[in-house]
């Protein structure tokens, strides 16, 4: 992967993101992937003068994740998206859509968790 990858933990993430902001990094986005059963990997992408930096955080999906939307307001949207897709909780989210950013309240399944399989239609 292009750019530098720094591993962080759930305790240091907000501080590390704060350091990034003080360093003048521009917030790009987060990416998520399934690290293992019940474990979610989150990559925080930053950019400064076309140089990429990534923070990698691996969390248990049943524990709340500290929100960085207080540091970067723009993270609010992507954290809501992750909440929609993986049904994880964020602590201190500035604007919480409660899993209705993309999904309708009548949808109860969790889209990206592998317990729901989509089937090819004929």
């Amino acid at each position: 992967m292009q750019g530098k990858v720094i591993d962080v933990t759930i305790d240091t993430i907000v501080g590390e993101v704060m350091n990034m902001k003080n360093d003048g990094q521009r917030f790009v986005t987060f990416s998520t992937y399934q690290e293992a059963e019940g474990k979610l990997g989150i990559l925080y992408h930053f950019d400064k003068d076309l140089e990429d930096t990534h923070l990698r955080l691996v969390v248990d999906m049943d524990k709340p994740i500290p929100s960085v939307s207080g540091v970067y307001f723009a993270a609010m949207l992507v954290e809501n998206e992750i909440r929609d897709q993986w049904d994880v909780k964020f602590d201190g989210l500035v604007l919480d859509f409660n899993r209705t950013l993309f999904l309708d309240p009548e949808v109860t399944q969790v889209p990206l968790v592998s317990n729901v399989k989509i089937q090819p239609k004929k």
Partner: protein
Amino acid sequence: MAITVIPFGPQHPVLPEPIHLTLKVEDEIVKEAIPALGYVHRGLERLVEIRDYHQMITVCERVCGICSMIHGTCYSQCIEELMDIEVTDRAKMLRVIWSELHRMHSHLLWLGLFADAFGFEALFMQFWKVRERIMDINEATAGSRVIVSVNIIGGVRADLSPEQLRWILSELDIAEKEIKDMQNTIMNDYTVKTRTCGIGVLSYDQAYELGAAGPTLRGSGVASDMRMNGYGAYGELDIEPIIETAGDCWARCTVRFREVLQSIDLVRQAISKLPEGELAVKVKGNPPEGEVYARVEQPRGECVYYIKGNGTKNLDRLRIRTPTFANIPPLLTMLPECELADVPVIVLSIDPCISCTER
């Protein structure tokens, strides 16, 4: 003064796509805007489970019809990086030509819609008339008007003959003249200036901190253009990011207008430097385990792809962050303290592409 809540959208005459904004207004002044998305959400990121990595190009191109070519390019580049495939120089340059044609048609489309948003219908028709030339080029060279689908893993599927290249250049000469005829109107006309100057101001610091992308970012004076990192064949071309410093709707409009002219220039450069060679290399096997992160410049700004392969023909994860998704937080900062009548103009000034945003 009492607060009134006014719903904006999802079906609104000025918006071609459904987005909903809850506007809290005091008298005529907007105090707060809260977005509601999800009207176009399809969930195509999960389709990687049942479509193999070749078939996913078709899906990626349909993330958004207006920037489909560049979505396809970005996805192909990611897979090529993951599988360590070296694409030929000719294929890279051909991708640049179609990408820039796509950027032109997207910007012309937006300029027309923007003119329509402040009620200048004649200008809307004029821009769309010019745009049809670009659509003709797309149709003649790739066989389809909007979704050109020329990318395949390892290269491109269509070639441009010398006659076609000459014809493209002559069409572009006419288009450039027609576009320049409208320059004075879109930049200096009294009506246009009254509706756009000083409206929806986003300062340099705000734009940078909120992670804005593309013309919204460059309209506030930040020189950030992903084409500068030289992906594909952009490293061989002479390219300068276009910036304006005012940060209002007029600045964003001007950036896009100048980018149309820049794209014409880039197509000319690319055609003059087009090398000989094969169109595509053979691809064997499946993408190995690994992660790829790639950024390209779309008409609306930087687009981020993150791909995780697991050694099978289906990818493990595909994540797409599109430019409009990054431009919604800046929009929410632009809207407060504006007049209700200016809301459509400000919303359009970020060039919202909702089907991109929600995927």
